[in-house]
């Protein structure tokens, strides 16, 4: 029951994402209908030319003109359909990506910790699956009934008994749909079970691959995998056999309509049958030609099934990233850092990510002494970055308190009140000076030069052709990663925070660069409170205190 509700929610959510591109997609639907109309015109031209020839002459200019004109206009309509579909597609994708970027890079606090690779996959790849689905199906859904009505009306005007044949055939369609539904349902459960089994086996096999290797069962598992795949294939084929049967019934309807139409027209022309208006080659041929077009939209709609499946599969991954990010998006004004040195006090702090049962940190007590370097060591996944994020005010703790103590009093942390340097330095487009001024755009040249000197960037800036105004290339090219890291130090220095929070600031650097960077960091943070998470022995050894984080809490704190 709950899974049904989840599925319904996913469908609703998916439908909601179409809104930004709806207008273009509706234009595409209009173009699609026009294409049908112009194709009818093209066939009218063909029937016209045939009449000309029957009357013993050459194809008339008018007839040829309608034949060519209809075809070319239909070509233009086809182009316009594809074009509008693509613009609508882009609108849908862009709106979704805008929401994702706003959620992943919020201006306010970040409550969840998005898995970067997963978030990137959802933003770059899965968003397209949803946009593709809307671009493909929405115009079709709107234009199909209009196109079918149009052809029916034209047939009725040209030759009403032929329209009666179409009507009879369409009456078979709901029956056929019912039949298809029944057929599909019958096999669907077995197929769903086999599909779920294969998915489980596949997931198990890849997740448990190290285990399979350890117990020497890689080959045996392969056999299981092949067998599960074969099971799914045979049930799928059974379903396809049934589903194709309904396609075959559809084929029977279409061929029957064509054959019945042809027979009726031929016999009328031969004078054996006399129903309806006077029969002529023109009328008969036209009714025959547009008959297959009547059924085309329905076949196209059946073909869109695969893209719908893909889009629905993408929904949970994307909506999960948006949960909770679209509320409280108030863009907080940046509050400047507190004056003077800061001591950080953590009292019985615990932290649990929303939706997870296991706490990351538990019962943690810690004091980060003012004006000192405190290094946090511990295995990957021990919660170093989470601890840092609580100290920096990225998010509030689930339990206990984190406080910044200054000479003027105690306050809860806020992200703009400290300097944070991470593993990756992002340089924005602009000059090296612009990048240093990011936190304080109004900083004086003297202040910037001071920061440059403090970060040990003076030599680098002197080397650049236009000094501080040298524009940086794409992604900060022109600077080494060590130099980029110094830019990060300079801009943190310029923001004049009393507390620096460093998350593996020397990751991905070679030993020499690391040693130089540690000197620069110690220089720039003279007299400030620094907490740094690291795996690097040399960075840990240059700290005043070393904390080991293990089993969700501080294991030992030693004075280095």
């Amino acid at each position, binding site marked *: 029951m709950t899974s049904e509700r989840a599925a319904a929610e996913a469908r609703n959510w998916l439908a909601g994402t179409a809104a930004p591109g709806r207008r273009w997609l509706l234009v595409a639907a209009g173009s699609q209908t026009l294409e049908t109309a112009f194709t009818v015109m093209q066939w009218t031209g063909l029937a016209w030319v045939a009449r000309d*020839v029957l009357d013993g002459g050459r194809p008339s200019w008018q007839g040829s003109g309608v034949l060519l004109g209809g*075809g070319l206009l239909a070509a233009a309509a086809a182009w316009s359909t594809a074009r509008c579909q693509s613009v609508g597609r882009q609108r849908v994708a862009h709106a979704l990506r805008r929401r994702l970027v706003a959620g992943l*890079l919020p201006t306010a606090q970040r409550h969840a910790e998005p898995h970067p690779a997963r*978030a990137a996959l959802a933003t770059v790849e899965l968003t397209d699956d949803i946009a593709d689905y809307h671009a493909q199906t929405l115009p079709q859904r709107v234009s199909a009934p209009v196109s079918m009505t149009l052809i029916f009306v034209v047939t009725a005007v040209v030759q009403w008994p032929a329209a009666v044949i179409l009507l009879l055939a369409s009456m078979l369609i709901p029956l056929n749909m019912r039949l298809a539904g029944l057929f599909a349902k019958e096999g669907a459960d077995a197929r769903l079970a086999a599909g779920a089994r294969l998915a489980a086996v596949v997931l198990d096999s*890849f997740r448990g*691959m190290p285990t399979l*290797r350890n117990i020497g069962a890689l080959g045996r598992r392969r056999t299981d995998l092949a067998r599960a795949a074969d099971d799914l294939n045979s049930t799928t084929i059974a379903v396809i056999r049934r589903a194709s049967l309904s396609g075959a019934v559809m084929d029977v309807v279409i061929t029957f309509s064509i054959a019945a139409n042809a027979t009726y027209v031929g016999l009328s022309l031969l004078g054996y049958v006399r129903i309806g208006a006077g029969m002529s080659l023109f009328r008969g041929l036209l009714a025959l030609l547009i008959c297959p077009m009547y059924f085309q939209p329905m076949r196209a709609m059946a073909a869109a099934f695969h893209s719908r499946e893909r889009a629905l599969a993408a929904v949970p991954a994307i909506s999960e990233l948006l949960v909770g990010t679209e509320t409280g998006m108030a863009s907080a004004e940046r509050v400047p850092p507190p004056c003077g040195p800061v001591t950080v006090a953590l009292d019985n702090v615990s932290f649990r990510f929303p939706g997870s049962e296991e706490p990351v940190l538990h019962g943690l007590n810690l004091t980060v002494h003012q004006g000192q370097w405190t290094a946090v060591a511990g295995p990957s996944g021990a919660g170093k970055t989470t601890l840092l994020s609580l100290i920096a005010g990225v998010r509030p703790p689930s339990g206990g308190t984190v406080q910044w103590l200054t000479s003027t009093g105690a306050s809860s942390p806020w992200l703009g009140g400290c300097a944070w340097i991470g593993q990756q330095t992002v340089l924005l487009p602009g000059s090296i000076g612009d990048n240093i001024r990011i936190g304080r755009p109004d900083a004086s040249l003297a202040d910037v030069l001071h920061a440059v000197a403090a970060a040990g960037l003076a030599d680098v800036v002197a080397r650049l052709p236009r000094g501080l105004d040298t524009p940086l290339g794409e992604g900060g090219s022109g600077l080494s990663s060590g130099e980029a890291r110094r830019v990060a130090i300079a801009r943190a220095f310029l923001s004049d925070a009393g507390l620096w929070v460093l998350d593996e600031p020397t990751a991905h650097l070679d030993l020499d660069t690391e040693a130089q960077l540690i000197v620069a960091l110690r220089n720039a943070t003279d007299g400030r409170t620094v907490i740094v998470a690291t795996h690097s022995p040399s960075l840990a050894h240059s700290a005043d205190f070393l904390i080991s984080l293990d089993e969700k809490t501080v294991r030992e704190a030693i004075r280095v």
Partner: protein
Amino acid sequence: MKAKSLAATGFLLAVLAEACSVGILGLSGWFVAASAVAGASAYSAFSYLAPSGGVRAFALGRISAGYANRVVLHAAALRRISATRLAVYDHAAGSEDTSWSGQSLDRVMADADTTGLALIQATTPVVVAAVMTAGGCVAIVLAGYPIVALTLAVAVVACAMLAAAAARRMDDTSRTRGLLRTELVTAIEAWPEMASLGAVDQLARRTLGRLTAFESGRNRHAATTARAVGGARGVTATALLLAVVLTARDGATIATLVFVALLTAGVLANAERLVSAAGAWVQARQADAHLRSAGENESRRPEIASTFRATYDGDRLAVAGYQLPETPTREAREIAFTVAAGNALTVTGVSGSGKTTLLTAITTVIRQQTGSAVITAVLADDYLFTGTVADNIRLANPAATEADITDLLAAMALEHIDPQTPVGVGGRGLSGGEQRRLHLARALASQPDVLLIDEPTAGLDTSTAADVLAAVRRRLPRAVLVLAIHETPADPNLHFGVGARLAANRHWLALDR
């Protein structure tokens, strides 16, 4: 039937179905036109029986071949999807150190689907269009209008060229996508730094800018495809007019004229489908490229140092040259030890000190050596596979009988668990301690010569842990045991009382200091 011949049969049936479909319209048109002529003349000998018989034959052919080709082509596509999946499995099994997330797996499976369905969406339309064009041209030449056949052929070639040109411009976006993903990962990781500087707006603007540029690129490709679609439709419209006019100029009867026109229109409809087929073909090629690079972006274990040697010669496990890296709390050093058969080594260290890495390195290196030694490792993140308890044990030893399994479970103090109990997804149907003991039971089933156990006491109380480890030794009296435990117990007998019973000569190796 082999996958290739299955696909070939599918193609043949698809061509047959399409030929019937074009034939039914062409013949009906011819019949209608002929009837018009005959109806106009007073005493005509025109019989409607032969053409209506032909229409019936075509109708039957279209329905049956249409049905058969759908089923056969799907079967071939599914066969191909399975083969692709297994190839990815083999690829993953062949590379030692890749771990997979659920999401990347979903992607791989979707890519496998795309390459399989390309058989239906890309290859079939191309084959059908080619055969239909050849057949249509021959029929028109036989009817006596070679110029019209030439026009038709030229139009189809023009459509094919438009489709190919559009497809070629739809260059592989997988590289762009890869760069974008890296970019996003960096931005997400740099968020706290930018937020502390109050520059999140700028970061978000830049990220969105990159995404917008990517979308514009896709939109340009789509515009190219739209032009190809419109262009192909324009070409076919012109070709149809030319075919009609040229046939009429050569003095064709009305029946022949209608027949040629409808045949041409039918063949040209297939040519129009080449544009989407080319798109599907490019997509399949991209999916193929993803599949070939699958797993490359996944997390990897650290490389094993070249000085590292591990051997097992039936009498002893010898390890030398293992480089223990420096950490904030410990110096780097080299590790070497030997453990004789029947003895045990206990490795201690806090989490993150490298116990699991050491165990994995030994296992990997010994397994790579050709020899009959069976080495099995029980790691903390071992996996239980969906199925029953017995299924999991048989994975290690398919020859295990019901009695063997009951025995093993009893030895692991799991006698209360029926071998037919399902373990649930990832073993979640069992408690942590039960999972742990089932891992051990499974490892024992393969009768290893060297058994490495990571955290054997985790999730077990002291006395159960002691019983279980004693049972391990009882069942494997000659095996080399390597046990990794979290910390050196203050009193080994209190915490790890089984130590004495494991072997007379047991060794300790501490990774902490």
